[in-house]
């Protein structure tokens, strides 16, 4: 019998791209905490959020170095960050935590839920969504949660009837106010068309962790937990793929229509062809100590891409964060 499998590498470093590099100052700041999300208005102004299970933190990159932001308060673990510019940044976290940054101060915004919030995205400063719910094994304490910011307050949004007993929604992203996608536990996919939320029924029942795209016909979803699941939408069809030997996907970002950037458990950074699902290349972050650090989020802006993560498989610590970055090539 014969077995052949395509492996890491293969397509070469994209033109103009550099190799992934750890960011020593960022990792030094994250030496005692995880990083779960990164976003920024520009390559020289990035925000990364995370912390320890009971303590949230925000790091900020100014183009030269990473520093810790003063939050002025103690908050639980922060899970996601998104914004509209250097003076309008939002972050959500455990126990319903919602923070807003106005360019000078982080303030806590009243939240209508005590569920953990895992994702936030908006199509404008007066129109945001946040999602969350429970984690694992907490029977009876978890509730899939969708919130809406209308410019003045956050409120709960009623979910459509789901075909599976999902307890958590993990991320939200949209291509515009009438095209918003929410992904969550057990393969739940919700879509908002500007008027109503409906479930897109997928075959996969694995957790879908995050979603990104470049437009309404170029949407990519990362998930799978242990083994990678990639879901794409090309404007007409939702395609579901198991990526076999690739470990579960956490983070996803797209800068061009044809290349999807993923970050996975076990610290892998991948590029995958949007249309075919073919693995273009795969990079392994350092694993100086077991357990390896997982990549949780990837985000690109201004020709650079940053990945963050941590050793989430060590829930009792010691906690170690991960920050890697590289320059993007022209076609990615």
């Amino acid at each position: 019998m014969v077995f052949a499998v395509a492996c890491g590498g293969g397509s070469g470093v994209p033109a103009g791209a550099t190799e992934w590099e750890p960011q020593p100052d960022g990792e030094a700041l994250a030496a005692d905490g995880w990083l779960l999300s990164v976003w920024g208005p520009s390559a020289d102004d990035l925000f990364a959020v995370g912390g320890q299970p009971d303590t949230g933190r925000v790091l900020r990159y100014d183009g030269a170095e990473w520093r810790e932001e003063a939050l002025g308060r103690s908050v639980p673990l922060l899970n996601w960050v998104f914004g509209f510019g250097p003076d309008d940044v939002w972050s959500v976290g455990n126990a319903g935590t919602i923070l807003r940054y106005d360019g000078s101060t982080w303030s806590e915004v009243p939240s209508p839920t005590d569920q953990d919030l895992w994702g936030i995205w908006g199509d404008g400063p007066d129109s945001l969504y946040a999602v969350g719910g429970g984690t694992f094994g907490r029977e009876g304490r978890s509730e899939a949660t969708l919130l809406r910011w209308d410019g003045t307050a956050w409120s709960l949004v009623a979910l459509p009837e789901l075909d599976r007993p999902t307890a958590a929604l993990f991320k939200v992203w949209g291509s515009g106010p009438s095209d918003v996608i929410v992904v969550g536990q057990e393969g739940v996919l919700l879509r908002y068309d500007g008027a109503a939320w409906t479930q897109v029924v997928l075959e996969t029942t694995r957790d879908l962790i995050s979603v990104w795209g470049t437009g309404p016909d170029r949407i990519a979803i990362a998930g799978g937990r242990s083994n990678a699941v990639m879901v794409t939408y090309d404007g007409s069809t939702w395609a579901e793929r198991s990526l076999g030997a690739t470990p579960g996907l956490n983070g996803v970002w797209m800068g061009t229509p044809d290349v999807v950037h993923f970050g996975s458990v076990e610290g892998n950074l991948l590029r995958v062809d949007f249309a075919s699902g073919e693995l273009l290349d795969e990079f392994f972050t350092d694993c100086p100590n077991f357990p390896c650090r997982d990549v949780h989020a990837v985000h690109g802006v201004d020709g650079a891409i940053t990945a963050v993560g941590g050793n989430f498989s060590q829930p009792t610590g010691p906690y170690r964060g991960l920050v890697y970055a590289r320059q993007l090539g022209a076609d990615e």
Partner: protein
Amino acid sequence: MKRVLYLLAFSQVFVGCGDDPVPLAEGIYGSLGSALPTATEAQQDVFARGEEVALRRFAPTDGLGPHFNVVFCGACHEKPVFGGAGARYRDFLLVGQRVGTEGYLERGVSGVLPHYTVGQARRRATDEGADAFALRNPIPFFGVGLLAEISEEAILAHADPEDRDGDGISGRPNFDRGFVGRFGRKAQTVSIEGFIRGPLFNHLGITTDPLGPTSRAQLPVPSPETVRGSRAPLTGDVGRAVQFQAAAPDEPTEDDDGIPDPELAEDDLFALVSWAMLLAAPEPEPPTERTREGEGLFEAVGCADCHVRALESPRGLVPLYSDLLLHDMGPELADGVPMRDATGFEFRTQPLWGVAAAAPYLHDGRADTLDEAIRFHGGEARAARDGYAELASDARDALLAFLESLGGRAQRTPGLIAPDAPLGEVGTPGGPRRALDAEEAAKFLRGREVADTDRFRSEGLGPVFNGDACRACHFDPVPGGAGPTDVDVFRQAIPGEVNEPRGLAHRFSTEAERPAPADGATFFEARQTPTMLGMGLLDALPEALLEALADPDDANGDGISGRVNRLPDGRVGRFGWKAQVPSTREFVRDALTAELGFTLPPDPGQTFGALADDDEVPDPEIGLADMRDLEFWLNELAPPAPRASDPGAEAAGEALFASVGCTSCHAVVDGPDGPVRAYTDLLLHDVQPEAFRGVPDFDATEREFRTPPLWGLGQTGPWWHDGRSFSIEDAIARHEAEGGASRRAYEALRAEDRAALLAFLTSL
């Protein structure tokens, strides 16, 4: 593999990746349940500690539940010794919900349907929407540490997912966090830690955190600290993660049972994982001409295409007779349950070492024998199956002889009692209650074997059943004893002004389904397994004596009004929680039918048990001779012997036991041969709280239960009819109605007097 391009073709397994022949691994064999002979002294210590954890009975106060199937690891991995497989009574159900055309959503607890819920002595409802069930039979752990050491290349070398060589065999790996899976029926798990933490949660409700780096570094299967390329370029060789044991599940498990998580300490989890890793591989027997012939046939008909003889590990070739790959077994074996990348048709090739001692066979235990297991194969194995079936009878026997020679045969037993186990001393647990002559001793041993033997479907087990042997429920502390709460059975009833009994709601069927309750039965009541030790002394008590003890109208005004359970035919009941069975002979008949699904021969004067059922096995499914042997064994089993540890306190406790009124029901009665110190009047009493609802049985009302014997009390927990008391004191505290006055008197005692009374009870 994904990180390096492989294009390997093996002509035979004795050639590894290089040119040099790879030797067979040495120092890997031992008797089943023993540690690897290469284990260091420190590893032997942790092996012993791990086995203690595997055998530890968990209670709700330890974190058991909220839902559970079993109360200890060894419950499922006990055959023929701890660390092994399990009989059918330890099968469990996977439960899921179909989504779309191919989607499958795990329901229950991580896809497992637990039978029990702590504090709710009721049958756990099947999850709403669940429409997919699959049966699983426990698999042995022998040699799993050696499987963990096998390289991914060695496994992938046999993969041929597109069947490019056209041999009809297209094995492919399953993956777990990017590593080649190797454990579980679908190779869904790469790490032994994961393979243990999952069931701890799914089957026991015991939460754990992943092992920390320090513990993982000390596991017997090593975890090197640096396994990857450092800052590798986008192209090029980036090195490989060769140590998969570090890829254990990433999340802590959590539950809401009120016990702080994690419920198992890291030291204990480390010991448990280490124990599993250190279990020796079953040692094959020296080849004979017959087994060589069988091995040749095994290869000739194609079995060895999947059951490859050996895979390479750092120790050399490990002869497990499996490629550890997934194969499509066709509709013949499909269970419809996807696990990671495995489909509902695919299963991992089961290792065959030690297969002689691992019956029943296949993922759901559907095969009683190796011959049957082979004939059940399908899909990719169809050609090999047909090749086997077409062999001459003698050739098939040679092939089976080869399989049986792959280890474990010397320790194989029909049940759990070791081959040639002695009779036992008179008066000792499991031994006879009196000296037996040679003929009686032989009958006693035959009866014990009847009780201990795991029954197969082909013998008449089912179609629905709770246990596949008498010993399946009665094994604490010895076969014939009581049972833990994880073998409780459920009585069912149609609710009404008076609940209308509908017999037992069984745990298992011989089909991969959860037996449905009787029509309209929505009320369930758990029943704890009582001890059978000393049964003959109770069987010998004359009916007139029990009738004389009764005081149905409380004529003496003491608030205690015991009644006999009068059966419709006039006999007096004495066995069972409701005293619903009149004799040991009827008890045997009742249990064989109700718990095992056996049909029985008629026996004049006896009314219990079924004479026919609708399975395919001719009735009766057991003979009268076996039943008489079983009855003899039960009647001759020694009662639990008192175990004094503090005679002074126990004597004081006995006096207090009488003075607070316990002996009004828990009485020592005079039998034909003297006092019977079972501490029961065998009568029905109402000791339940006001709101209690139960299931009537013959003349016993919903609220009435027979006074349970107290001998052996310290070794027969948990207590109460539904096993909800995990301490004797809690059981005392539950006494109401007729037992209320004694309970209050007990509670009014000084602490040291209560302790003395408990010491007495524990010593019985």
